[in-house]
């Protein structure tokens, strides 16, 4: 997946700590797989836990975060030469807050029910460490198209993890998916899964499962050798 950079003809950017050059596809793919925000980096845990009790909420939160990631990546990268180093964090957070307000208003105008269900967690996207982290570590150091690609990839990785987690919790905790009942009337919903402890539990078990798979693959690779 890691294709060699195509843009080496242009003068390289002399930013210390800049990420190594990569193709746009690699920039997108990284956020979904190797540097997945939720499953690998543990960033943005608060919305991950709080809104994943129903699939619709999880998807809405994921897409809203993607919108903010792409928008803030674009602007942070555009203005990277003009933002003084001392006030960069404040500048980034102002850019992020602007896009969050936009997303909040858009969602409230188009899907009022979901906006109401997300409640304060919509404006709380500002405080998602993922956004400031990507602005500081990536967008501020690369060209615009890479910053947008990275934001999109991270957003998709976030949306995918949230969708999986919320689908799991909704199926087990309510016996429905997107509000449609899946099982017959004799299904007893595992209410624990949609309550707060269920959020920690579902992600914990998912991570333990992931670690088991990685361990198992490692052992098989060792045995093959």
């Amino acid at each position, binding site marked *: 997946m890691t294709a060699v950079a195509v843009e080496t003809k242009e003068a390289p950017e002399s930013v210390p700590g800049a990420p190594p050059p990569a193709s746009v596809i690699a920039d997108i793919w990284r956020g979904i797989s190797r540097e997945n925000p939720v499953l690998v980096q*543990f*960033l943005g*845990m*608060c919305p991950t*836990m*709080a809104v994943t009790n129903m699939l619709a909420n999880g998807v809405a939160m994921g897409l809203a975060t993607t919108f903010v990631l792409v928008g803030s990546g674009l602007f942070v990268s555009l203005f990277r030469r003009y933002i003084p180093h001392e006030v960069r*964090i*404040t500048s980034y*957070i*102002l850019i992020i*807050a*602007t896009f*969050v*307000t936009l997303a*909040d*208003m858009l969602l409230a105008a188009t899907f009022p029910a979901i906006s109401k269900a997300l409640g*304060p967690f919509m*404006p*709380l996207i*500002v*405080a*998602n*460490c993922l956004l*400031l982290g990507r602005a500081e570590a990536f967008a501020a150091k690369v060209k615009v198209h890479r910053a947008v690609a990275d934001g999109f990839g991270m957003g998709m990785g976030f949306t995918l993890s949230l969708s999986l987690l919320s689908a799991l919790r909704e199926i087990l905790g309510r016996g429905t998916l997107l509000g449609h009942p899946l099982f017959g009337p004799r299904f007893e919903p595992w209410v624990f899964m949609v*309550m*707060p*402890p*269920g*959020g*920690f*539990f579902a*992600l*914990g*078990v*998912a*991570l*333990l499962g*992931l*670690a*088991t798979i990685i*361990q198992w693959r490692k052992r098989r690779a060792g045995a093959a050798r």
Partner: protein
Amino acid sequence: MSNLAWIFVSTLLVNNFTLVMFLGLCSFFGVTAKIETAWRLGLANTFVLILTAIFAWFLNTYILASAPFLRTVAFIVVIASAVQFVEMAVKKYLPVLFRQLGIYLPLITTNCAILGLALFQTSRHYNLVEALVFALGAGFGLTLALSLLASIRERIEVADMPVIARRMGLVLVIASSLSMAFMGFAGMGSAP
């Protein structure tokens, strides 16, 4: 008076910010490897929470009434400034703690507990005294949750754990049981 006591108990235990409302999870999982650091960060957070509660109340009362769409932006700027202030104070007077907290001190800015406090305080229309009690309850609740998880994690650090449980998975399951314990307070009702 009973209302104030109720707000305090409710935010400390029944609707604990970290374990029931899922606010401030980054530091909850990030800084709870050692109990010393955990409760100190909790207290630093409490201080920022109280500052934020005061500033947010002033903003709400005098400025944001005429421009509610600026709420998120205004709150985050106030929080960023308050954190900057606390960072300078800690660096000057408690240099050891400053080194221990490291990146998690400036990261208080992106601790959703702080912004969450300002937003909840707004939506519940608390007055200044109620907001202060709310901030105190939230801060102590945060400190309590951090200390609880840190003391358990110090124990499992020396225990003989299976390989798959040595990373975040087990910590999340422990957090789940802590959260379940706090659900026991739910019978006391919810915040007014």
